[in-house]
């Protein structure tokens, strides 16, 4: 299944784009998608525990299952205000 990956801030710089399209095996989770991205972009590895995620613009967890066509966003630590 194919999902849209959204990257922000420094993750976007490291990944070279704010939006990517990636393949995930059926039954995959946000964590599975992330593991693939870390292989692709080794700089992502440093984010490990400090990262948040969202699926279809709702906060999610790394164990959240994803479905074909989902938008999965990875959020580095935030700094609004």
């Amino acid at each position: 299944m194919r999902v849209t990956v959204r990257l922000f801030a420094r993750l976007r710089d490291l990944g070279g784009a704010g939006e990517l399209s990636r393949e995930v095996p059926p039954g995959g989770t946000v964590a599975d998608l992330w593991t693939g991205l870390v292989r692709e972009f080794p700089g992502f590895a440093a984010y490990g525990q400090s990262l948040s995620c969202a699926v279809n613009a709702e906060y999610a967890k790394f164990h959240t299952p994803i479905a074909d066509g989902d938008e999965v966003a990875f959020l580095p630590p935030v700094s609004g205000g």
Partner: protein
Amino acid sequence: MTATTAITPAVLDLQALVRLVEGPGHGAVVAFLGLVRDHNVGRRVTHLVYESYDVLALKALDRIVQEAAEHWPSVRMAVHHRTGRLEIGEASVAIVTASAHRADAFSASRYAIERIKQIVPIWKHEYFEGGDAWIEGATADPDNVDARAHAMRMACA
């Protein structure tokens, strides 16, 4: 028509937010502006660029307004956050609260800014003399009860 919450590239209009929340039963209005500062951790800042995950950031602001309403049911609140390039002295965030008496309006305002810094998916890209850097603060987890309790302690201190 001014919305209660907004993520916008436009200049923030504090007066519009005041008009939105004020009312005949409100004896207090607290207006908070967060401004772009010319220094940070010893660096001379030239400007900031704010990036946002707009859809989720707006939901997060709505969530913060809802959380505040649960704790201070009589407070009316409006929160707008700006995105894009901001120069020194420009307002990045405006929070306006209104209540019958001042204590609740002050507390709810402080709660809102603490929560914004904790959970809203917005990022500062800081440009300073000699370089630039993404600022990374809190891991955004709206369900983190410790973070929410911390914001509440700051609000009620």
